[in-house]
């Protein structure tokens, strides 16, 4: 599996797998060299994460658009069944959480989150060396890099905190937007400052409520990232077993890989579901007006 690792140490192998293909403006100009990442500063992009993320988003839209291209209210079949099942599942979840308030954007958003995050997570099941090796060899063949090992390519977008926190940021913006829209600016501020101790302890209230507010997107993003990063890391470590010149360890590695992949299917779906449910819950909380 790991052709790249003849004179690669384990640490280098792991580091290689955990480094993004980063592009940004370094001192010498635009470059995609990860070793110059420090020079790029904030305005740099993980092309691999973002590319896969957008690609999988397009897959989601394409799949669901294809599934609805020949819509019929007669007996549905095939892809339409799958699409309708997903939509119904999401809709049921949204309606069970959003009991009082109605917001037409929550359903589509929850569906997007569920399927998109699931697809991104699903990339974790592609053996860790396949795509990086392919891309590395291609890049070396075309002449972008000297050897395949010099190319960096991290496949699973949700193992990049930028991606998960990016989505959490969007959710956070929506939380604040709807809080202000539903409760008014005054209502939102009073919610932040007048709980839980009343108006005489406003600073304490503010600290508590602000942490409460800020913890939502951070926990949302980091939960997904942490789960997927850990899963990916274990896949890398198992893949590392195949690098050793030992048949016994190799077979053990294949067995472990299979076991972990099977178990990981559960985590992938579960994390996507959790991300969706928390998104709905946070937005439902933003829509709640009554005091608590």
């Amino acid at each position, binding site marked *: 599996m790991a052709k790249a690792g003849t004179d690669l140490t384990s640490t280098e192998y792991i580091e290689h797998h*955990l480094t993004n293909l*980063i592009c*940004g403006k370094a001192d010498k100009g635009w470059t995609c060299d990860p070793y110059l*990442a420090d020079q*790029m*500063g*904030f*305005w*740099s*992009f*993980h092309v691999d*994460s*973002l590319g896969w*993320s*957008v690609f999988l*988003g397009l897959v*989601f*839209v394409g799949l*669901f*658009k294809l*599934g*609805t291209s020949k*819509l*019929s*209210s007669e007996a549905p079949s095939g892809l339409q069944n799958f*699409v*309708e099942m997903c*939509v*119904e599942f999401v*809709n049921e979840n949204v309606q069970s959480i959003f009991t009082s308030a109605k917001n*037409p*954007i929550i*359903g*589509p*958003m929850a*569906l*997007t989150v569920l399927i*998109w995050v699931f697809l991104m997570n699903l990339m974790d099941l592609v053996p860790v060396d396949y795509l990086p090796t392919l891309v590395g060899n291609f890049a070396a063949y075309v002449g972008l890099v000297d050897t395949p090992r010099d190319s960096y390519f991290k496949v699973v*977008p949700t193992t*990049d*905190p*930028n*991606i998960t*926190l*990016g*989505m959490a*940021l*969007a959710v956070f*913006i929506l939380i604040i937007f709807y809080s202000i829209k539903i409760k008014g600016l005054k209502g939102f501020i009073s919610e932040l400052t007048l709980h839980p101790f009343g108006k005489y302890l406003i600073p304490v209230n503010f600290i508590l409520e602000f942490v409460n507010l800020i913890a939502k997107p951070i926990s949302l993003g980091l939960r997904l990232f942490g789960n997927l990063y850990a899963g990916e890391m274990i896949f890398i470590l198992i893949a590392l077993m195949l690098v050793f010149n030992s048949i016994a360890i190799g077979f053990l590695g294949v067995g472990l890989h299979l076991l972990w992949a099977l178990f990981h299917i559960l985590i992938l779906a579960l994390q996507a579901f959790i991300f969706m449910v928390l998104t709905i819950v946070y937005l439902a909380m933003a829509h709640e007006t009554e005091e608590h």
Partner: protein
Amino acid sequence: MTINATLLGQTLAFVIFVAICWRYVWPPIIAIMQEREQRITDGLEAAKKANDSLEEAKLNSSAELEKAKQEAAIIIEKANQRASQIVSDAQTKAETEAEKIITSANKTLEGEITKTREALRKDVSEIIISTTEKILEEEISKDKHEKIIIEAAKKI
């Protein structure tokens, strides 16, 4: 593992995909699902209605049948009455006719009798005259005359 502009890029991508889903993907699916739900509800309702009307039609048909039977019975009864009336009428007519025929026959017979009686009377008187002439020509003898008289009387 650094935080950089990828985060903003992903936020932007998220917003765009949610917008696409919200605008183009979600509504047709929801619409079609609601439409199917509606169709199923309508179908069930129609089936229930059809069942009801079937029940009603059954009741109606049995009522109609009953009515028709009654009508038929009335018609048959009327027909029977009419038939018996026709028969009795015919009988009466026939009786009258027969009486008429008998009366006229009697009349004819009476006329015939009268005629015959006239003729007989004529004959008798002729016979009597001729017999009387004979008697008067020859001599009236009691024995001889008696025989003739008896003969004449027989002829009468």
